[in-house]
């Protein structure tokens, strides 16, 4: 079962591509590309938990993020935490008490919006793994240009050079509320709320894409 | 104190740097039972390579080996190969005595060699520790370590199938082909550090040389090559040379063990008698 899907959205976000079951060993996996940014995510779970991390009432979620080069450092630890806590919010961990769910993410290329890309990849891999989730999670990255004060959705590396502030918002698919958020730079309240609204709208495209991928793979079985 | 093949022949051209002939071993000196506290121990010198080995056990499994082999019903052999930081003959000093990749690899290979001679089924759920301490390095140290470990096992009274004997055979210069008929062409045994460093190939083998009518005779347990490329056609000759060295070492060590036992076992028999 393999295949590649190209979905052209309305030009708001960079084109997304996804291939499920990219890896054979994990219980669920996804290779996800957003523009030139690409990551691979693999899920093992529920598996036997390590004694120190075992929780009697729910599954413990472990995330390992591997950067493209060098050993993981403090920055990657931060990314790991966001992925972990976001997936924790989406998963129904209480269904598998005393076990562990391992999410492994490997960065392949970073051309802007890496965090959003990893979260989307993790979500697709979770869907692929068949673990029960409360909702899907979709991440959207945007920035405010320094000179023009213009909002650019899903910028690439060259555009980010000109950024005054960047935002990564992660929304849930049911109520479209904010699950996670990370920002860089200085910005006003108005700018923040404006980009929040725009990204919320754009998150529809992400969820739409998720749905199309799931339907596509579902019919193929 | 025993000495290697000493049939000296005056053949200047065929002699090695230290005056040995190609199939000649270095001086071997042995002492068994060096330590009082260990269950078995041995000290072995082959030329300037000097090694101490202590054997503890069989005892209840403990430490990392026990955890790793928890589901293992048979006996566990636990080896540690450690090199004293001052052991190099050259000026430099080793940074760590153990824990580096080479030491770990040697520990593992040592375990393989020991597993091949110890009758593990005699020791279910027990552990035997073999600790090697290299005091001075002058070539063939891994082979000498295996020889010393065998002696320490004998000293500990652990039944073994056969001596596990290591010996190196080294082609001093593997590129030269003109002297096919000279004795060096088949390699020199028991290489020193200088010979190991020469631009050639060194083959280390651990074999069970066996007594003359043994089924396991000449069985090679561990083999390892190092150095430059070696033409396949020359491997067999090299292996035979090393095996030949193994047999020589075995005879020397066997004599040493027998001598050690005759010297040390009599008093214990008499005390046993008194208790009776």
């Amino acid at each position: 079962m393999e295949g590649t899907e190209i979905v052209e959205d309305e030009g708001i976000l960079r084109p997304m591509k996804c291939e499920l079951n990219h890896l054979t060993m994990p219980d669920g996996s996804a290779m996800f590309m957003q523009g030139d940014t690409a990551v691979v995510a693999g899920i093992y779970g529920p598996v036997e938990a390590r004694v120190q991390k075992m929780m009697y009432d729910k599954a413990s979620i472990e995330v390992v993020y591997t950067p493209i080069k060098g050993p993981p450092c403090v920055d990657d630890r931060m990314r790991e935490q966001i992925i972990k806590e976001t997936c924790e919010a989406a998963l129904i961990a209480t269904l598998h008490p005393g076990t562990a769910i391992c999410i492994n993410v490997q960065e392949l290329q970073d051309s802007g919006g890496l965090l959003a890309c990893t979260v989307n990849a993790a979500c697709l891999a979770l869907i692929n793994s068949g673990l029960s989730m409360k909702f899907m999670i979709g991440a959207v990255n945007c920035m405010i240009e320094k000179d023009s004060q213009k909002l650019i959705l899903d910028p690439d590396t060259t555009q980010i050079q000109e950024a005054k502030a960047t935002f990564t918002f992660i929304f849930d698919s049911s109520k479209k509320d904010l699950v996670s958020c990370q920002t860089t730079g200085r910005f006003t309240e108005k700018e923040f709320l404006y980009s929040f609204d725009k990204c919320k709208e754009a998150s529809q495209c992400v969820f739409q894409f998720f749905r199309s991928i799931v339907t596509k793979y579902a019919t193929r079985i | 104190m025993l000495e290697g093949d000493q049939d000296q022949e005056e053949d200047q051209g065929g002699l090695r740097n230290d005056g040995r002939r190609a199939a000649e071993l270095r001086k071997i000196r042995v002492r068994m039972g060096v330590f009082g506290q260990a269950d078995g121990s041995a000290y072995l010198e082959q030329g300037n390579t000097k090694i101490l080995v202590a054997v503890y056990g069989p005892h209840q499994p403990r430490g990392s080996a026990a955890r790793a082999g928890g589901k293992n019903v048979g006996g566990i052999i636990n080896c540690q190969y450690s090199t004293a930081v001052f052991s190099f003959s050259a000026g430099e000093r080793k940074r760590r005595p153990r824990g580096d990749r080479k030491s770990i690899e040697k520990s593992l290979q040592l375990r393989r060699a020991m597993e091949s001679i110890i009758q593990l089924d005699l020791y279910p759920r027990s552990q035997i520790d073999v600790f090697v301490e290299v005091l001075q390095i002058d070539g063939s140290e891994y082979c000498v370590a295996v020889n010393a470990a065998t002696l320490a096992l004998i000293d500990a009274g652990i039944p073994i199938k056969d001596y596990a004997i290591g010996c190196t055979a080294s082609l001093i210069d593997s590129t030269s082909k003109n002297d096919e008929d000279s004795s060096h062409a088949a390699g020199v045994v028991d290489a020193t550090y200088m010979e190991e460093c020469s631009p050639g190939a060194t083959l280390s083998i651990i074999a069970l040389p066996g007594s003359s009518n043994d089924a396991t005779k000449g069985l090679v347990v561990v083999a390892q090559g190092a150095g430059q490329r070696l033409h396949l056609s020359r491997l067999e000759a090299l292996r035979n040379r090393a095996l030949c060295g193994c047999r020589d070492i075995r005879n020397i060590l066997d004599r040493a063990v027998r001598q050690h036992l005759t010297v040390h076992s009599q008093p214990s028999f008499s005390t046993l008698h008194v208790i009776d």
Partner: protein
Amino acid sequence: MRRNLPRSKYQKGIIHPIKYLRDYLERDIRPDGRQFLRVRPMSVNVRSITQADSSSIFKIGNTTVVCGIKAELAEPKVETPDCGYIIPNVELPPLCSPKFRPGPPSDQAQISSKIVETVFLNSGVLDPRNLCISKNKLVWVLYCDLICIDYDGSVMDACVGALMAALKTLTLPEVEHNPDTGAIIVHPSKRLSVPLKGAPVCTTFALFEDQLLIPDPTEEEESLALARLSLVIDGEELCGVYKAGGIPISQEVLMKSLSQSKKRAELVRKLIDTAISST
């Protein structure tokens, strides 16, 4: 009202901490006797550590963070020849809470370090070019070590507060650098402060069921919260909104937290200023 009892000593008796907390929240009060939107009393103390170049101790309720800055000299990076270094590290030693074990920094300490660094860089409080002594040759390195002494919730708030208070009182000795010979002379008696602009203030919120938002949570509230949210405000602008997972929050709650943190920011700024002027 049991607000003065040291928490850890009497928390032990709680068998069902979640229900315990929920009972309080249902009666519109927090376990330490606070109203929902009240923050704990804060205090800040500067220049108390003699060996550091500047220091501060920031307390929010029980939570205590000590910040010490040590300045050293180094060569700048090739890419940024006129920029100094600021190295903030948050230390959550085992001393501050039984949650931490001795050894390398926990994941949480690493994430806290990263957040403090991001807040610092985003806010642009200190231009690293002000730390340049001689371009391409010599710059200041400010090692800002934030050590948590008492871990009782909202540690990020205390860390950011302590860092800002310490930076505000930082003075660096005058350095003469001869670019040709490389000779360095330091005049310890002439010390100058570093120009700063703005002062970001971090406010942490905890979220509970029904989008209940409480600022400045204690450790107990933090560990039982369904989500946590941190906002960093500097004057009229924001320089960081940080939320990692937990229950999704609506825009109204976001607006509410924004207005709350603005109030808090003003309070903290005044507090730091009075503390500095009074010493």
